[in-house]
């Protein structure tokens, strides 16, 4: 794919991924076919800051996990009073990383 397009994608979507994954994404995007550009450029990613806010407000009921797509863990969190309140606090710090990981999983469907 065109390097300009790839750089534009990286610049506008950098906050959705872990910084150490960015150069892997860039290398991979340059090698893949141009026909996938429409899919990749229109893909919706979850914002880590939004999920942090959701986690602080509704993390006790597992809503943060539901929002990023971890339905199973969300139910676990809901049924155990937010993991006895401990998991809630842990997730305030973990949820941004988890969101970025989910975004990476989503992008990987297009990359490979």
């Amino acid at each position, binding site marked *: 794919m065109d390097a300009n397009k790839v750089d534009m994608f990286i610049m506008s979507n950098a906050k959705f991924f872990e910084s150490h994954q960015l150069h892997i994404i860039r290398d991979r995007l340059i090698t893949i076919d141009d026909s996938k550009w429409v899919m990749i450029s229109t893909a919706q990613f979850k914002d880590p800051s939004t999920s942090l806010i959701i986690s602080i407000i509704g993390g*006790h009921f597992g809503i943060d996990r539901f929002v990023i797509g971890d339905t199973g863990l969300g139910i676990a969190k809901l049924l155990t*009073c937010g993991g006895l309140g401990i998991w809630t606090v842990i997730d305030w710090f973990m949820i941004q990383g988890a969101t970025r990981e989910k975004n990476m999983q989503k992008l990987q469907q297009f990359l490979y």
Partner: protein
Amino acid sequence: MHLFQNKLYRILSIACLAGYIWLYFNLSNYYSKTTSQIGVCLFKRVTSIPCPSCGTTRSVLSILQGNLLEAFYWNPFGFLLLAVLIITPIWLVIDAINKKDSLLKFYGFIEKKIQQKLVAIPAIALVLINWYWNIHKGL
């Protein structure tokens, strides 16, 4: 995929271990008849309104005593949680011995099922009804 499997299995084993430790503390508390209740529910502490899963510990304790009706009164989630607490460690051990990922596959299957609207909406409704019931009971 392999990375995710290890992570899920780690979370599940930690959760089960924590569950059993919590249960042990509550059981020993129950038998020594100490009145000190340890409440860990953040939501209840902050708002003094019980959350949808408040009373689950008491429900599990009632099941272990054999009072199924009382367990249902405390919180119906107790049955589900106790079943998960018993089945998951066995399944984890079996998977570890056979070096397979049957639990992960089952987890993915359940996750897909629950994300369907036909299942999700009744499930959410049930949780909300249970929450209302909890508030009504004044747990």
